């Protein structure tokens, strides 16, 4: 064990002068990206406090969403606590729970918008980016003062959660990962478990983009479901796929060192994505658009396989024995 670890550590040092490992992933990607997400959502909340004009808020909301994608696949630690990650991006929502709850709030002009602590306790479906998207890109015009108050409350709640995640990582969770295997660390009993935890985020991140962001609107050739696309109203469905792939590659390389095959696969997927020229995936309803999107999905899955193999080999971990194959 000891010798094997030592050999692996030497191999990693030789292979990656940038020193990719758990610390590298935390210091070079996770903490800076969380800080950027925190700042972007704070800007959104501050802007919303000044104006509710959609034309002013939309670019700021989009900038915050862009900042979300590099950390959106880190479903562990402070992001999981108190359902934060669910509330920040409650999607997919196949039964339209978020839209229904928001309609009720608008109809009843619920006073919770003036009570940040109360708002934070409301359903995860009612909050976050997609709640704001429905308010900034409404299907029917919103009237009166209440929608503005709701935009402000939702943006402030989002900024609060982003700040809490950032704080949670800096104040303890980063150290929990870095101290894996040391006495007193009851979450990660070995260094390998911390590596595996981050490796799993990489894998599930690719999987989410493949199965949910692409697979869900693809449906089947006979029955495409473009109306299921993520962030369709704001027409950033394709952008989310592109940014997530870039973010996953950057994270994977910060964690495991150069991933040449993954890099090539992601580049190919990005080329295919750009060629779709279909920002909200409405073209998935056309036979040609569907076929090309299916090809893109295949490329994303190939990239996932490469990342799994390359990062797994570099880190000496794999998907959990039972997670991989249960019954």
């Amino acid at each position, binding site marked *: 064990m000891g010798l094997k670890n030592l050999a692996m550590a030497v191999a990693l040092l030789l292979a990656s002068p940038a020193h990719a490992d758990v610390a590298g992933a935390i210091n070079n990607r996770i903490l800076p990206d969380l800080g950027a997400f925190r700042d972007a959502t704070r800007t959104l909340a501050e802007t919303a406090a000044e104006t509710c004009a959609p034309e002013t808020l939309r670019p700021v909301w989009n900038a915050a969403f862009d900042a979300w994608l590099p950390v959106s696949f880190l479903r562990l630690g402070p992001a999981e606590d108190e*359902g934060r990650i*669910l509330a920040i991006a409650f999607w997919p929502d*196949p039964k339209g729970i978020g839209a229904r709850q928001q309609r009720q709030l608008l109809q009843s002009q619920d006073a919770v918008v003036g009570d940040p602590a109360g708002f934070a306790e409301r359903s995860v479906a009612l909050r976050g980016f997609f709640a704001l998207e429905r308010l900034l890109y409404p299907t029917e015009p919103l009237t009166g003062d209440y929608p503005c108050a709701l935009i402000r409350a939702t943006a402030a709640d989002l900024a609060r959660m982003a700040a809490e995640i950032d704080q949670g990582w800096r104040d303890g969770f980063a150290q929990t990962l870095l101290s894996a295997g040391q006495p007193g660390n009851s979450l990660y009993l*070995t260094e390998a*478990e911390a590596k*595996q935890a981050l490796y799993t985020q990489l894998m599930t991140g690719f999987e989410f983009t493949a199965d949910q962001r692409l697979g869900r609107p693809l449906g089947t050739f006979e029955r495409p479901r473009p109306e299921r696309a993520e962030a369709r109203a704001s027409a950033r469905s394709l952008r989310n796929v592109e940014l997530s792939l870039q973010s996953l590659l950057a994270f994977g390389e910060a964690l495991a060192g150069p991933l040449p095959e993954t890099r090539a696969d992601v580049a190919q997927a990005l080329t295919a994505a750009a060629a779709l020229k279909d920002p909200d995936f409405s073209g998935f309803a056309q036979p040609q658009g569907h076929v090309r999107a299916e090809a893109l999905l295949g490329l994303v899955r190939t990239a996932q396989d490469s990342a799994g193999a390359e990062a797994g080999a570099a880190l000496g971990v794999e998907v959990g*024995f*039972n997670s991989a194959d249960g019954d």
Partner: protein
Amino acid sequence: MATRRGFLASFAAALTVPRLSWADAGNPGFLAAAKQGDGFILCGLAPDGQIVFRIPLPARGHAAAAHPIRPEAVGFARRPGTFALVIDCARGEIAHRLTPPEGRQFNGHGAFSADGLLLYNSEVVAETSEGRIGVWDAARGYARIDEWPSHGIGPHELRRMGDGTLVVANGGIQTDPADRRKLNLDTMRPNLTYLSPEGALLDQVTLHPDLHQASIRHLALGADGTVACALQWEGDPAEAVPLLALHRRDHPVVMCPTPENEAWAMKGYAGSIALGGDRIALTSPPGGVVQVFDTAGNFIETIRRTDASGVAPLADGLMVTDGTGAISRLGPDGLVPLQRHDLAWDNHLVALG
């Protein structure tokens, strides 16, 4: 009745002086299969997580059934199961090899009668996934002596209750006999079936029609006749449904939801379940979590543990095994690591006795 029968059985067993007992196998409290290196083993575990025996297995197992008296474990192959092995845990040998009848497949789990005379196991008609309970004569070399319908599709775990009643989780999923591909997810309708010790249908319950895609797969028993069911959601993963259902005969099924913030933590998948003391625990390897409820089905907490899978009752809580090789105790002070072994614990942890 059950106690009388049990008394007579143990009396008879004492008179005939069994050649070996579980003491000869190191008195394990638990059985667990594992992957070690490229091979597979069956281990006996003490309550402190120490390994008291390890026996090589020819292939990956799914779950084991422990003989109530003799130091024998029956390890069932993973689906589609073509064999089960009776392992002499004292001698470290394979004592018998069970093969399903033509056209049948084992489905991963089995249970002994209280007197240890009979072994029951879940199996399917390979072509249709119609459920069967195989009955084997454990006193006479595990001869196949009977079979009964399980009254459902794709039975998975079955448990013997204190009064001898068998309770069967008919998971509802029809699978391709060759590759386990799921064939009927749109129409599946799992059920929980109670059979008499002679195989007569006593009772059957289903979940609400909205939950027809929640496969009932694993079971834990309470002393009061409660059957705790662990579910695996085959519907849209974006929908969060309860994964714990409680049932007592002549009572309605109770679904046990979690708070919204915890509702996706299991990823729709409960891999194992145990009821111990005043707690029920469900594990989710894909979620890397253990969810804990009280015995009335009220949610208590979610605990993170990498690749957590096996779970079984301990005297003072529950024992949890995982794919990293750790064995932990879940008690009032949370999840406390007991031991770490250089292997990967497989799906299930089985308590003896």
